[in-house]
């Protein structure tokens, strides 16, 4: 399948030529296809946020190319602007960027900038609001009157309303309670399925990425250290720990069981663990 988004040998240096010079990305290459759910993990400062901003043309790579549908997004200004709409980027704590008088107007900001007509904007705003579970009454209130979790949803809806083919989110669940986290992750998954969109999500929760994604990119020291399915990645527990990362807790437990001499498979989600335990020795001698 032809990749929708591809980056080739991208290097990015901040404040080149000053005492604050800092290499944030070093020769990073990968390609993503339509419909994939990709997790990006990495220690703080490993280049995740910089990487995300390369993908929709906010930062221009110092060297290397970013291809969207096979076209270099920096080839001309129009393409760069197109990339901003086709690759939706939700920053960390996106609720701090809300500014309009009503939720409706704030969600409509992106579609309006795309130059769509009134009817299409209305359709998209209502659909995006539906994806994140906002009610019609909530569309008419000021975003500043909402709770933190609801503000976050408004901000995510603001990006979803542009109907991006690739949706990138930087820690969309940071600072939310467990219920809020599960809801937002559910909303994102729902959008991906409905639009066959690619989702890339930066997360520090190994449990979340293990459960949701089909592929993981591991960033370490400005480089792409690993690129594989979660099952494969989590077999390298020691390397991950060295990078300041971790493996899901359930995987840790099972690794420990193996060390104790029990013949259990590698698992990385709770569902797999339950299945594995049920099939283990008839289930009687475990409990």
């Amino acid at each position, binding site marked *: 399948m032809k990749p929708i988004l591809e980056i080739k040998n991208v290097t990015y240096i901040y404040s080149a030529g*000053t005492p604050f010079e800092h290499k944030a990305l070093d020769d990073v290459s990968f390609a993503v296809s339509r419909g994939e759910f990709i997790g990006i993990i990495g220690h703080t400062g490993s280049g995740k946020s910089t990487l995300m901003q390369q993908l929709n043309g*906010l930062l221009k790579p110092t060297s290397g190319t970013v291809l969207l549908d096979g076209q270099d997004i920096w080839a001309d200004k129009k393409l760069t602007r197109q990339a901003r709409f086709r690759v939706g*980027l939700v*920053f960390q704590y*996106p609720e*701090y*960027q809300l500014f309009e008088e009503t939720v409706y107007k704030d969600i409509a*900001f992106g579609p309006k900038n795309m130059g769509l007509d009134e009817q299409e904007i209305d359709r998209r705003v209502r659909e995006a609001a539906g994806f994140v579970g906002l009610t019609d009454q909530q569309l008419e209130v000021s975003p500043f009157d909402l709770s933190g979790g609801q503000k976050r949803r408004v901000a995510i809806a*603001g*990006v979803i309303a542009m109907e991006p083919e690739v949706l990138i989110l930087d820690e969309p669940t940071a600072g939310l309670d467990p219920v809020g986290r599960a809801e937002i992750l559910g909303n994102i998954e729902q959008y991906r399925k409905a639009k066959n969109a690619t989702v890339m999500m930066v997360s520090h929760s190994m449990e979340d990425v293990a459960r949701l994604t089909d592929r993981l990119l591991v960033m370490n020291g400005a480089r792409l250290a690993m690129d594989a399915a979660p099952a494969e990645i989590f077999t390298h527990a020691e390397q991950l720990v060295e990078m300041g990362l971790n493996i899901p807790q359930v995987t840790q437990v099972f690794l420990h069981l193996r060390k104790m001499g029990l013949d259990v498979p590698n698992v990385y989600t709770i569902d797999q663990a339950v299945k594995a335990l049920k099939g283990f020795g008839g289930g009687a001698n475990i409990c």
Partner: protein
Amino acid sequence: MLKDITLGQYFPGNSPIHRLDPRTKLIMLVVYIVALFMAGSWISYGVMLVFLVAVVKISTIPPKSIIRGMKPLVMILVFTGVLNLFFTQDGRVLVEFGIFTVTTGGLKRAVFMVARILMLIAGTFLLTYTTSPISLTDGLESLMNPLKKIGVPVHELSMMMCIALRFIPILIEETDKIMSAQKARGADFENGSLMERAKALIPVLVPLFISAFRRADELATAMECRCYQGGEGRTKMKLLHYHRNDMTAFCLGAGVIALVGVLSAFGL
């Protein structure tokens, strides 16, 4: 665009200039400014320029960053230069077209004024580049201490200044973040008429103000949690001391101002 704002930025380093007592640097800046206003001839400007270049050299601050900081002032410089050029009428006439005449006196004055502003700014930049905001306000507080006797809230003023300086880079970073977020939603800050561009700033300014108020509130709470109650009875972790370097700097400063003073007294 935002990267051009270097006001109040500190370049960490360990040059002799960095290590000077902040009070020395503040006093030297005043001396430098006075000397700059006393200077009125090519020779005295030359002396000042040599002094400035020498200090920049010792400070190991890349001259590029000082020049970059002057970019926003180009309009003022051009304005000053042109006004002085055309409105000073003494000396020999150099060029004449229409109602405008350029004289040798005018040219000299224009060059001097522009040089004076440039050197003034360069000197001030040098202070903020080589002094961390905290030691700068420490120095100011210590220098203004005598004013306490006449009821000036010196500590409160310097604390406010310290916080303001500290917040400049934070707010710049915040602005950058918000601008990126709005750009990701298709906001366009670079194109369009003046009116459109001003309008495009609303999605940045509203969140920025909200965040500034929130930060101020959080900071106030954090300070109160640590029992901050103003300057009364407050001790310092880093006490300011003058060292040999500071004496050398004072002597040098006195030398320069004396030299420029003598030069201008003799009308040179």
